[in-house]
């Protein structure tokens, strides 16, 4: 997957300034600041509980910030929540369609909830049916649709009123890779048409398709940049991919090698982060003597996950001192 260059025409559509939200003593979102420009796919990457959903809910006017401020489509999220809601589409983590209504009935309802009627409602319903690929099934009950169709329909119904910004909270959970690809093709179409897409995910693959990615951990925004720029936290050729027998055992051994900063398991391979490219020889030697003779050791482009792990580790180390 390629990482498109930063898009957008510079007009700021979403901004957050020291946005925070606490629930009792628990700080779910801690002084988060960022700006999203028009036509951008802005990815919010983090594990569950990192504060992604809380941030999105504040931006959508569903949850008041404890402190800090933000604007969406020119409206203040704290004082103009009603206005914000007319200018956004929101696809929550939870299923947002009525399973006991048909495709068309759902679209009519959501269109009505956005205040659409007459010709415009008709036109937008047709668009959503087409975008979801449901021309033949517009009178099927949503409960009978496969997951991928449901998700595209949910996206379509959040876009009936043609909002300039759409917030997608982990939109592709639980669907197969093909359905996920089609969903993202739809997002690319939207962005081409000038819509700004704000998407949370914990899938690295999806994050790679974003123009810019914010890494969120324990309520804090740890890094924010384009995908290639994020990967530049590593010096060139300092992430090695190792294929060797008993990778889990080899991990412990490699961690002791001088110059190895981090080892993590990626499927059946190891990613070894070293401080200099010439450490590759040391790694091979160590594995050989340990009885883990590698069948492959090569420098690779770091994945976002490598970046994510490093950023979190650096942040935790920073807090420790």
């Amino acid at each position, binding site marked *: 997957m390629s990482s498109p260059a930063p898009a957008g025409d510079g007009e700021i559509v979403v901004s957050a300034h020291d946005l925070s939200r606490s629930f009792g003593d628990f700080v779910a979102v801690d002084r988060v600041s960022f700006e999203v420009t028009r036509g951008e796919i802005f990815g919010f990457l983090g594990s569950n509980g990192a504060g992604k959903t809380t941030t999105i809910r504040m931006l*959508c*006017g*569903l949850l008041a910030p404890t402190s800090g401020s933000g604007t969406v489509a020119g409206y203040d999220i704290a004082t103009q929540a*009603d206005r914000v*809601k*007319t200018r*956004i589409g*929101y*696809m*929550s*983590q*939870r*299923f*947002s*369609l*009525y*399973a*006991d*209504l048909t495709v068309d*009935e759902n679209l*009519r*309802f*959501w*269109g*009505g*909830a*956005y*205040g659409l*009627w007459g010709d415009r409602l008709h036109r937008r319903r047709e668009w959503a049916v087409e975008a979801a690929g449901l021309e033949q099934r517009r009178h099927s009950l949503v409960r009978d649709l496969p997951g991928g169709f449901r998700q595209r329909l949910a996206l379509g119904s*959040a876009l009936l009123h043609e909002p300039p910004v759409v*917030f997608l909270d982990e939109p592709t959970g639980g669907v197969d890779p093909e359905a996920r690809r089609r969903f993202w093709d739809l997002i690319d179409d939207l962005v081409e048409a000038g819509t700004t897409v704000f998407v949370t995910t914990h899938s690295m693959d999806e994050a790679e398709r974003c123009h810019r990615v914010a890494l969120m951990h324990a309520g804090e925004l740890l890094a924010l940049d384009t995908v290639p720029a994020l990967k530049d936290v590593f010096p060139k050729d300092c992430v090695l991919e190792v294929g060797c027998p008993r990778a889990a055992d080899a991990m412990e051994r490699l961690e002791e090698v001088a110059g190895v900063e981090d080892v993590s398991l990626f499927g059946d391979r190891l990613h070894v982060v070293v401080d200099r490219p010439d450490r590759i020889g040391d790694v091979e030697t160590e594995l050989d003597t340990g009885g883990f003779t590698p069948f492959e050791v090569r420098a690779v482009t770091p994945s976002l996950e490598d970046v994510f792990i490093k950023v979190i580790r650096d942040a935790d180390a920073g807090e420790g001192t």
Partner: protein
Amino acid sequence: MIRRVLAVTVKELLQLKRDWRTLIALLGMPVVMLLIYGFALSFDVQDIRLAVVDRSRTAESRELIQAFLQSGYFIRVASLDDTRELDGLLDSGRAQAALVIDAGLAADVAARRPTSIQLVLDGSDSQTASTILGYARQIVAATAPELLDVELEPPVAAAPVVWYNPNLESSIFLVPGLVAFILMITSVIATALAVVREKERGTMESLRATPLRAFELLIGKTLPYLLVGSVAAAGSLGLAWLLFDVPIRGSILWLAVLTVLFLAGGLGWGVLISTLADTQQVAFQMGLLSSMLPTLLLSGFVFPISSMPAALQVISHIVPARYFIASLREVMLKGVGPEVWWNDALALIVFGVVVMGLATVRTVRSL
């Protein structure tokens, strides 16, 4: 705004149409409950099993016994010569009451002396016993002049005339309360479940991200249930009129107005519950308890409010069924207009406005 409300209403109706089990429950339950309660819940006492001990055996005593039997309330289960066997009959329940006439009755009557007869009652069910006593007093009072064979002209005669329900049939008294009871339960539970369902399924979160306002959502969601509730109310009242001969003397229009006001309060209560409950199960239980108990106990449906302890009388003022039942009786049984029951209608309006307002505030805040 109206379009958004309408969108919600249409959606809710479609869902209701597809959920035929709920629809049948909403429309059928009132009918079933009316039948069960209507036939089972009655304070009328009929076919009282009477044992007769006639020691007099005269024309006068026979006339008195006949008066009891012909009243239609009593049937004779035993004729005894003395009172020794009475214990057994009353203990076993074979007789509910015994009429004991002393040997001196005829002589007393002939001599125009005050005399007495004895009525022995099974008092284990005090309600029934006092009803029987009432019947017996009436019969004796009516028969005494005939025994004397004179037209007595007492200086002051109390001539009771019961208006609106001349036979004092309890069904006529109970049915308006029953209608209120049934409507309250169904309207509260139906709306509470309808709103909580959105929370449970997660659609509430998406609804809140639309320009749909809380009160638009709530109005849109309650309108279909107002409609269904009105149909159920009309059905219950019609059935009561057909089966229990409950008169509808007043205007149907006023009946409809009061019913809609009452339903609106019930629906509002349901919405309020939905903001407190997170699952349909909890909502159902809260809805059932909070609608059934006050409506059954504190509304004047079964137990007259005037005979309640003072504290309960105060509490009964916040039970909407109290006002609905009172005004329903006025309209159905007396046929009077709003000049009589306007304050009940006003109380229903106040209740509806307050709970709907609270529900809206809670919905805005809690979701």
